[in-house]
């Protein structure tokens, strides 16, 4: 009975849980509700992925309110967005499991139920962006997720969180507006907002200047949301000053969803042939991706604040994801989508481990991590586990994505690119090693707080670390779905 309505429930469950949180007010109840809603969303995303993989065409179409597309809003799920939804919902579930003690430590009691409300709104916004098959609907959900994430960031412990959130608000709004202008221009030319319908109508208009302008506006707007270098300026402060839970959640999901929109717009709406062959979108993005890989990593190396360091590392990793897209072959897109998944696991686990550190020590600078291995062995090991993935050590998920990226580069005969990928991985070794050195080889300062973080935080962190190792060994799910998604995209739209 309920199965056909899963696409709608995916968004509706967290969306309805959010106002309930406000009504119920009590922190424990709000947390319980958020917990249930997040895990329900995760369960729905798993079921949806299974449904999509089983369905004959590889696509589920759901007509919202019974209005048939292209007039009504259509939720359209293919392997790509089922996969991204799985990432978002899984991270959402893990992070909410982790959140209890961490939120209690970092956020004042009266604000906590509002925090969970915003969390649920952000989650439903991100899921909505992913699930919908309507270009304008994407904007709506993008705004839901963005507005709630401004709130989430602003409740960070320091006053700087407020300015960081404000900065993000400005840039996020510019990005969303640019996207909206782009969509408006498309609507003007085609009279439709349905993505599948747009995919039919846009390619014949290739060369039309309005289409070109739309193309450019969307590239810049979504690039801003995805924090693609040099549009990453909002990201380091936002991640560094947000509460630990929020950093982990946003780093693992928000930019990923934006990259998803990028892929969706260029490979589905404009179509692989038009975007890649006609507009050279690969060549346009590649220099920025490569610059992100090196600049992000290089800045990360010198950061004294580990959380900020991870933020810059994220800028670099988004570079890898976009690079896969920029290589613009089926294998390259596979690598990019795969890294989307793997990076969410790795960076999520590292931010969660940092949250544990902050919980115990109240700081996340390199100095505060001296001798941490003795004081918080499990947390430190989890951080290193995620770090190994970021470096791309074999037996971790990070290795798999790097392998696919390098293979994709070699497939096009771009030796220099493969060399650059490996070279930038060396930078990752340096910034991860700084933390390892501080944690394992420096003596702890006298009187430094010791003791592990609470159990739920450790379990959630280690769940991601374990997933990071698991998907480094068994790649059937991660690579399999990414390959299917890429094949569908490059084969001329779903």
């Amino acid at each position, binding site marked *: 009975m309920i199965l056909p309505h899963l696409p709608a429930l995916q968004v509706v469950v967290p969306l309805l849980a959010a106002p309930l949180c406000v009504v119920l007010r009590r922190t424990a109840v709000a947390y319980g509700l958020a917990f249930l809603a997040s895990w329900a969303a995760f369960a729905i995303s798993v079921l949806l992925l299974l449904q999509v993989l089983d369905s004959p065409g590889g696509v589920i179409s759901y007509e919202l309110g019974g209005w048939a597309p292209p007039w009504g809003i259509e939720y359209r799920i293919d392997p790509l967005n089922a996969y991204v939804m799985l990432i978002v919902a899984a991270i959402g579930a893990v992070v909410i499991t982790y959140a209890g003690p961490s939120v209690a430590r970092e956020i004042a009691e009266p604000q906590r139920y509002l925090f969970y409300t915003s969390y649920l709104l952000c989650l439903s916004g991100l899921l909505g962006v992913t699930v919908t098959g309507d270009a304008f609907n994407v904007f709506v959900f993008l705004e839901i997720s963005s507005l709630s994430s401004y709130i989430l960031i602003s409740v960070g412990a320091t006053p700087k969180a407020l300015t960081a959130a404000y900065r993000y608000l400005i840039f996020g709004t510019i990005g969303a507006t640019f996207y909206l202008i782009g969509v408006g221009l498309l609507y003007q030319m085609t009279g439709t907002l349905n993505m599948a319908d747009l995919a039919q109508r846009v390619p014949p208009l290739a060369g039309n200047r309005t289409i070109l302008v739309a193309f*450019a506006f969307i590239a810049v707007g979504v690039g801003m949301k995805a924090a693609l270098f040099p549009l990453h300026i909002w990201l380091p402060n936002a991640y560094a000053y947000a509460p630990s839970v929020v950093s982990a959640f946003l780093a693992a999901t928000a930019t990923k969803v934006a990259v998803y929109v990028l892929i969706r717009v260029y490979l589905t709406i404009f179509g692989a042939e038009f975007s890649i062959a006609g507009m050279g979108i690969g060549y346009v993005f590649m220099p920025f991706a490569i610059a992100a890989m090196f600049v992000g990593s290089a800045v990360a190396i010198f950061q004294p604040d580990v959380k900020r360091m991870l933020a810059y590392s994220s800028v670099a990793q988004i570079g890898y994801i976009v690079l896969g897209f920029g290589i613009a072959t089926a294998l390259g897109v596979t690598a990019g989508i795969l890294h989307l998944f793997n990076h969410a696991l790795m960076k999520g686990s590292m931010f969660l481990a940092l949250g544990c550190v902050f919980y115990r020590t109240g700081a996340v600078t390199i100095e505060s991590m001296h001798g941490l291995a003795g004081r918080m062995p499990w947390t430190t090991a989890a951080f290193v586990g995620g770090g190994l993935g970021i470096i791309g050590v074999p037996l971790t998920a990070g290795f798999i994505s790097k392998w696919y990226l390098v293979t994709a580069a070699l497939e096009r005969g771009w030796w220099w690119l493969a060399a650059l990928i490996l070279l930038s991985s060396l930078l990752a070794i340096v910034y991860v090693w700084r933390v390892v050195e501080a944690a394992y080889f420096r003596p702890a300062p006298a009187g430094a707080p010791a003791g592990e973080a609470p159990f739920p935080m450790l379990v959630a962190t280690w769940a991601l670390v374990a997933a990071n190792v698991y998907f480094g060994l068994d790649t059937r799910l991660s690579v399999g779905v990414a390959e299917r998604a890429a094949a569908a995209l490059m084969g001329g739209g779903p």
Partner: protein
Amino acid sequence: MIDALPPGAILIAGGLLSALLRGRAQSAFLLVLPLLGLWQLIELPHGVYHQITLFGQTLAPVRVDTLSLLFGYVFHIAAFLAALYAWHVRDTVQQVAGMGYAGAAVGAVFAGDLVTLFVYWELTAVTSVFLIWASRTERAYRAGMRYLAIQVGSGVILLAGIAARVQETGSVEFGHLGLGSLSGALILVAIGIKCAFPLLHNWLQDSYPEATVTGAVFLSAFTTKLAVYALARGYAGTEMLMWIGAVMTVFPAFFAVIENDLRRVLSYSLNSQLGFMVCGIGVGTQLAVDGAVAHAFVSSIYQALLFMAMGAVLFRAGTVKASALGGLYKSMPWSAGFCIVGSASISAFPLFSGFVAKSLVLAAVAQEGQWVVWVMLLFASAGVLDHSGIKIPFFGFFGHDRGIRVKEAPPNMLLAMGLSAFLCVAIGIYPAPLYALLPYPVGFDPYTAGHVVTQSQLLLFAMLAFAVLMRLGLYPPEVPSLNLDSDWIYRRALPVAAGFVVGCLAAMRQAAAAMASRLFDRFMVIVFRYHGPQGVLARTWPIGGGAIWVLVLLAGFLIFYYL
């Protein structure tokens, strides 16, 4: 049940499990593991196991054939001896690392494809470095870091080679590779680092002497022999290797002669021994490859024995500086005796294991008519006698009695040394079982009058010369002038000559390093200017500045597309 496990898994998993145990239970458990592993190997029929397909490549994690079995056997034997030698150690880090390291080496020789090889290759690096760090001194930490960097670097080059190989042939199978392509060259460099080729060798002498007493025994057995295995598998008959090997036998001799730290002397002699194997592989005839792997087999054991003996000295006397030792044979007679057996083996005395293996290589080189190489090997053999055959036991146990009185080594060390010595003699007297394990049928008898007489002549004259010089040099009160003379030959001429060469090289190296470091510094200043915490790329940009970027990008896009 036991067949289902890949070789090496018993050692690795058992090593990890042993972390749960303490004290004697741990030592005993670790002692059983190599025996279990050895039993598994004996039961294991030839073939390829556990094939899986990953990234479209067929991986063969386990391939059993004669060559891998031979190395598998000797690695297990060495692991057993080392575990016995380390019975008294109560340091879980060392015990786990040592056994894991042995397991990784075993796994590597059974790897049927390059990817599996790479995984084990890096695993040996990562596990073995703990044996150096376990000394827990600042020196050891630094040496370990250098060691790790070089070993992991070797792995990275290997990986690059594998990638190139996949590109060239589409297969990751680990068979004969040869030098004909980029991948062949890259992989050879990776192996060459682990095998301590000349100029790639420094890590060995740098790190092994810094390892713990027992750690050095583990280290001496695996890493370099694994590299020899990889060479034998991939590069048999590559002529360049013959020359590399010949140079490799000769040049460490000079350093070994002037070195004061006896474990570093052993590291040089280990390097020289590897040269014989590399040379044999380079010759590439059946006899030569047989000789090389036989040599790898026996040298694992006698080299371990020598490291054990010097380890025992270090353990009891607290130093292995030649200048600080002497007369220890009075208090450690058994260790001295076993050390002499090891020395006799490495010097290839007839009836000791070195002889039956080294003669194969020498005979193969002679058979091919490579007389220059042959003479180099002969010269190296005399050198080995000098620095390992005589110098080690002489300075370690005899020499000028400095009145050091210590206890004999602990019984477990003596037992380990005794077993190793027994193997050295047993193989030396009755080489047939070893020959039966070799990849090719051996129609070679080391005990012909010709071989024995040639070798004995070489050894006796080398010994005579050395004895005369040393005897004259040893009694300064009686013949001070002559002492100066012999002293000059032994302590001045060689060091000055070697020192000159080394000095020139060092100066060049220093100049290059200084230039590189200046360039690097300048580069880092620039990187830091832009990427440092206050650098323009790391600063929090004002909102207006960020917005301008957005406009610039949009304009760039529009211009790009309008054109």
